[in-house]
């Protein structure tokens, strides 16, 4: 199947969702290409398991398709709604006792392409970060991932997590302190040049 081209990137997610709810399948295809990469990345960071992350993304999108005909415009951002659903699905899975994947499975080593050394360094940093995120309490991890990896604003994270903005700031601050401590073995990358 030829992937649909997002010809109008300025079309808001909500407009596409309403179009889908009115029976436009192409709107669903564009939303899928636009939103699923973010969901998979978010769930992957929360669960450290690629297969489970894809399951969460599929389930969250299925719920979006089902709610589309009754979507109340202007009440919530589509992305906020999806992050909230995905976060709850991730927490459910974590609480069911799913074991975190071993660190070695977090990514593949870089190949021998030109610039592979730089890529490997970046991949190492990404793996180290993923391992450190896995050690955070789930609420801290969620706040840090949404703020610093997904790039959401604190008020938007507050709405997703159903807490106040100050609580978001507290969670991200504590999460970052814990990450710094966990990554302290990589002092040069953290910017600590001397002892």
């Amino acid at each position: 199947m030829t992937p649909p081209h997002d010809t109008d990137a300025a079309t808001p997610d909500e407009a596409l969702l309403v179009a889908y709810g009115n029976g436009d399948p192409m709107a669903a295809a564009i939303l899928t290409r636009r939103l699923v990469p973010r969901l998979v990345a978010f769930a992957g960071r929360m669960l450290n398991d690629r297969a489970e992350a894809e399951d969460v993304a599929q389930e969250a999108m299925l719920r979006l398709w089902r709610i589309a005909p009754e979507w109340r415009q202007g009440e919530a951002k589509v992305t906020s709604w999806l992050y909230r659903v995905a976060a709850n699905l991730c927490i459910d899975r974590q609480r069911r006792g799913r074991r975190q994947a071993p660190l070695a499975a977090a990514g593949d080593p870089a190949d021998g392409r030109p610039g592979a050394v730089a890529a490997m360094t970046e991949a190492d940093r990404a793996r180290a970060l993923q391992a450190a995120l896995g050690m955070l309490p789930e609420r801290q991890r969620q706040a840090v991932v949404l703020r610093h990896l997904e790039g959401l604003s604190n008020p938007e994270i507050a709405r997703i997590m159903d807490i106040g903005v100050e609580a978001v700031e507290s969670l991200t601050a504590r999460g970052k302190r814990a990450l710094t401590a966990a990554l302290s073995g990589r002092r040069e990358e953290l910017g600590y040049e001397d002892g």
Partner: protein
Amino acid sequence: MKMAESDDPLERFFEAGRRQAPPPSDALLARIEADALAALAAGRPAPAPALPGWRGLLAALGGWRAGAGLATAALAGLAIGIAVPATTLSRFDALSSSDEGGYELGELGPGYGLALLEDG
């Protein structure tokens, strides 16, 4: 002093994490699009084709049962309209032209006339 985000030493790790996020598989995207089409089909029955002429009108009224009820009511109304006015008019004429059509005060109740005499 609060550290600017660009000076945040963790930012190098965050940037690496953002850049290294693997894209979703084509199989996942295909499954999700299939879900979307299935949800669309499940929640929205195919519209009935428009019926031409009187069949369309009948469908708009609510089907053959509603149409039959409406036709019966129309015929009954027509029959009443034809048959009843003659009877009604003849009764009206009889009442208005006859002396027996009026009422005297004494006819309103058996003791009404006596009651008036006693008060006066």
